[in-house]
């Protein structure tokens, strides 16, 4: 056994990547879709459907990427605007910090300065993390070290630029630089004197930005003392200090932990910026809008589906946008996967319309409702039968006619949102909620939030109407597929899978593996017993909260088919000397085999967190630790 495999054997778990043995025809593109219409769909249409999906998916994603990239740049601009804007100098000339609170920040937001070479000022960003700040002394030392190294770098670059442009040969000047270097080296002590003497050392003003990350995890006494310490650096005229706090809880939490006098100090010139992208609806609105645009206004979203999106977004406060994109993505995929009519989203494909589709079309509820209306009114008998039987292609024409129509809801939603933004300058509306209310027909109640809207009630009002065939082009969550796939309840799934393993593992009769099929006894064994862990779990489920370990073993032994197992072992032992020895050496071979199974399954169960192995007190029982149904 080599070292690697020994190390592998010590691991508590391994990841196994299945190897693919099948023959791959590399020239054929693999389409993960299956043929719909009971398998009668032609492969040409299948391919079209796949291409269409692929195309929509990539357009949607490129738009989402753009939107997300904009968030970053928007934010960066805003931050550096605040930090570099000197117009807001305190009127009374009293030196104070410029403070910026980034609320909802995950501390990854970078603070950057525009890369403009300024001969009078050095901009430095000093990062502080809770780990690096065990006490004020270390905080000071670290930050001064960073200040020095950054300044050195900046100046060094500048000097290089200078020497590239102008060749400095003047002896006196180089002397002067030497002198400066010397004094620099002698005076570099990593405390506030560096800041104090900055002007003398580097002949520049200093703009320091302290980027305090993950403020919530700081020791607040230290942070408070450090801020007070920095205060004394403010008395130097050449120094400006900005403090950026990354806060991921809320502001009042920070407030409560700092001294009142420190707070007053920070309050003199401060800005708040909410950087969590889920704050406000701006970006969520844009993503949803771009989704509606992607499907060309053809696809409908059902009321249930939009409600589902809204609900799930409110349940997840921090990764809203990711979640929204994921839901929309998955729903689009599942729609194209399951709906044969999805191919007609692109009207060009109407040529593929055939009897199979039309048979389904005529069963559409909206269509039947329409026919119903026709019979009650003065529709002629001939018209109706023509439509129903597609005589002379009437139904086909009818269907095509509706296909090219735009979805009025999408259009109106867009109109309302534009109207709100451009005419009334309302930006804090949730477009998804607006869309939901549009579908419900309660748009006016939603718009009542903004009193300005009452004046334009007529322009904004909208009556939802049922379009014929709309159910064919609707993304819905009525089967609960999205809920199951995106938000699985992992504990109950685990239980279910353990109980009915056939659902997740292939049954032996399905496997056409030659190596297994050869051995008759193995096939019999596979038919009679499932994976050991699920056999154990069945027993476990019926047991009391505390299980005697011996009883557990006996119960397992009794439940296993002795005959089949022994048959298999005996057959195998023909080729395996060790196994043969094991079988013949004792008459309790079966008990021993079961014991091996039992120990394996027991540690498996422990590992997935279903049982507690005994504590030191009682070693003869295991405790159940899973609570059913939660």
């Amino acid at each position, binding site marked *: 056994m080599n070292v690697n495999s020994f190390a592998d054997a010590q691991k508590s778990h391994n990841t196994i990547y299945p190897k693919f043995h099948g023959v791959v025809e590399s020239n054929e593109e693999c389409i993960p879709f299956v043929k719909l219409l009971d398998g009668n769909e032609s492969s040409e249409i299948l391919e079209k459907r796949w291409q269409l999906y692929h195309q929509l998916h990539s357009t949607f994603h490129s738009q989402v990427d753009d939107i997300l990239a904009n968030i970053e740049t928007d934010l960066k601009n805003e931050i550096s605007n605040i930090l570099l804007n000197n117009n807001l100098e305190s009127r009374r000339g009293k030196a104070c910090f410029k403070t910026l609170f980034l609320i909802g920040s995950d501390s990854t937001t970078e603070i950057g300065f525009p890369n403009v070479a300024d001969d009078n000022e050095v901009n430095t960003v000093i990062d502080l993390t809770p780990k690096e700040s065990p006490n004020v*002394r270390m905080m000071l030392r670290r930050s001064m070290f960073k200040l020095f190294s950054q300044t050195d770098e900046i100046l060094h670059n500048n000097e290089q630029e200078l020497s590239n442009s102008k060749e400095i040969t003047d002896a006196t000047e180089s002397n002067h630089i030497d002198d400066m270097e010397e004094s620099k080296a002698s005076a570099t002590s990593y405390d506030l004197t560096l800041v104090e003497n900055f002007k003398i050392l580097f002949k520049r003003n200093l703009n320091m930005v302290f980027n305090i990350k993950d403020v919530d995890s700081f020791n607040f006494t230290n942070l408070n*003392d450090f801020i007070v*310490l920095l205060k004394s650096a403010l008395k130097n005229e050449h120094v400006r200090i900005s403090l950026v706090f990354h806060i991921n809880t809320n502001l009042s939490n920070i407030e409560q932990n700092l001294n009142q006098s420190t707070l007053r100090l920070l309050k003199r010139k401060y800005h708040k910026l909410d950087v969590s992208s889920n704050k406000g609806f701006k970006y969520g609105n844009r993503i949803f809008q771009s989704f509606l645009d992607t499907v060309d206004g053809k696809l409908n979203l059902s009321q249930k589906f939009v409600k589902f999106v809204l609900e799930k977004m409110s*349940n997840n406060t921090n990764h809203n946008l990711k979640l929204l994109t994921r839901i929309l993505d998955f729903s689009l995929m599942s729609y194209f996967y399951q709906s044969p009519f999805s191919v007609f989203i692109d009207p060009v494909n109407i040529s593929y319309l055939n009897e199979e589709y039309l048979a389904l079309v005529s069963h559409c509820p909206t269509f039947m409702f329409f026919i119903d209306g026709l019979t009650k009114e003065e529709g002629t008998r001939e018209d109706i039968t023509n439509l129903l039987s597609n005589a002379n292609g009437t139904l086909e024409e009818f269907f095509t006619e509706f296909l090219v129509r735009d979805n009025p809801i999408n259009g109106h939603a867009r109109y309302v949102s534009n109207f709100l933004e451009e005419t009334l300058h309302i930006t804090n509306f949730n477009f998804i909620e607006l869309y939901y209310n549009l579908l419900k027909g309660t748009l006016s109640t939603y718009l009542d939030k903004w009193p300005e809207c009452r004046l334009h009630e007529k322009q904004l009002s909208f009556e939802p109407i049922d379009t014929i065939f709309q159910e064919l082009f609707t993304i819905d969550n009525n089967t609960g597929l999205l809920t199951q796939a995106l*938000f699985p309840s992992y504990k109950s799934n685990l239980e279910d899978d353990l109980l009915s393993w056939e659902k997740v593992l292939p049954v032996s009769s399905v496997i056409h593996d030659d190596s297994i099929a050869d051995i008759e006894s193995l096939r019999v064994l596979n038919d009679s017993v499932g994976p050991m862990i699920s056999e154990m779990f069945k027993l476990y489920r019926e047991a009391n909260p505390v299980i005697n370990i011996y009883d557990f073993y006996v119960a397992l032994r009794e439940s296993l088919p002795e005959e089949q197992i022994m048959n298999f072992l005996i057959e195998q032992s023909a080729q395996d000397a060790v196994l043969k020895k094991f079988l013949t050496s004792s008459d309790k071979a079966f008990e021993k085999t079961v014991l091996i199974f039992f120990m394996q399954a027991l540690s498996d169960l422990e590992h997935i967190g279903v049982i507690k192995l005994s504590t030191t007190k009682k070693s003869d029982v295991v405790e159940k630790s899973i609570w059913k149904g*939660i």
Partner: protein
Amino acid sequence: MTLDIPNIKFREYQAQTLSSFISQNHNHSVPHLFLQGYESTGKTYTITKFFACNPQLTSVTLRPEESVTWKLLIQSMARSIQYKLCDLYPTRRVQLRTNLDPLSVEEPFHLINFLTKMFTILSNESRQIFIIFDGLDTLQDIDATLLLKFLKLNELLSHQFDNFKLKMIYLIRDANFIARYSTFNVPTIVFPRYNYDQILELLIIMRFGDLYEDLLTHLDKIETKHLKEDDNYSIVINFITLIVQAFQMYTGNNINDLNDLLDLKWDTYLSNIDETNYTNPISIYKKSIHIFNATNDTLTADGGDDEQEESNNGQTYELSNIAKYLLIAAYFCSYIETKYDTSIFSRKANIKSGRSSYGRRKKMETNPRHLQPSIFQLERLLAIFQAIYPMESATSSGSLQSLLDERLMKANVEVFQNLAELHSLKLISTTIVRSIDFLSYKTKWKVNVPWEIIHEIASSVDFDIAQYFSGVSDF
């Protein structure tokens, strides 16, 4: 030759005393001097004024607060003296610089070497240098021995050098600090706190100028006809008086704090002055009464509108509903004993209730909420969460559709996401800190939130949390 005594308001006595301890003749000045007085009692101001008035005295000011550690303090002491001497004797500058690096001063004996070397270079000069430690007890890692080192340092040096004398002046806030060194007989000048009248007068002297300027520009803006100067004066003085009257109870006689408050409130006060009320101080006061009611030292108060919006979304503390209910459940887990769980949370009617289920009940002597949170297992949290989380059913009860509805909240991925969020916000925590296996049964949890916050969170979702505790103990 006598020293000039600066005229400092309310500190005449202290300045006088200083002049009797400090003299141009080094034999007449004391080697060590304590100036004791609490924050903002004018120590620094007085001593700076004193030396500014008497430029013939050489002084070096150190701010121990900035040095953080005593190593850095003695380093900066060495450096400051070196710089001072370089300035005083420009001809000896090169000599004083070479081989004398203040950074090498890391221990008190280095400092002595350093000073000895410098004084030897300048052996034919003579001078006394006053070293002012501005707030020695504000040094972060102050200990009892540091001052002893300085006291000894002086002895060692004065023994060697007759020409150079170091005189130390320590500005100290805490009277207890001085009490430790009472056996050294160091003279102490005490700076008592200013009283109310003195504060008012000082603030008016300090701040009148710039506030008055502000007022004039403001009055120009609102286009009033100019008042008599006296009336304008009275507006400013009135404001300062009001602030002092309103907040002196809160800040104590601390000029700095009152000064801050003046700055923070002045703009609002100014904006309340308009053409209708500028002649009437009472109506100005009435209009701006809210600024005198509270210190408003919060960063959030300004954005009052934003917060209202937040509460509309039900996003207090930026938590989702699931996270809020999880936190409430975690609070229950930590503060309600396990034995009461069945009777409090179970919806089953046939469970034995009352005494038979958990034995004889004794009223607890202490409120469990005053104790540390007890630890619990994740499964219990999820079970209680399931019991308290309200599931709204869209279908009418009794219909076939309602059979498909899930009655109870199952712990799906969302729940675990929110749990992870709560954990990273440190609202709930685990007993082990490092390498946590979150799903392992060995991991124990506890809630990390006080009653006030959980009450606020619970009320934001209309959950009457107090009711759950009423049976357990008196509140």
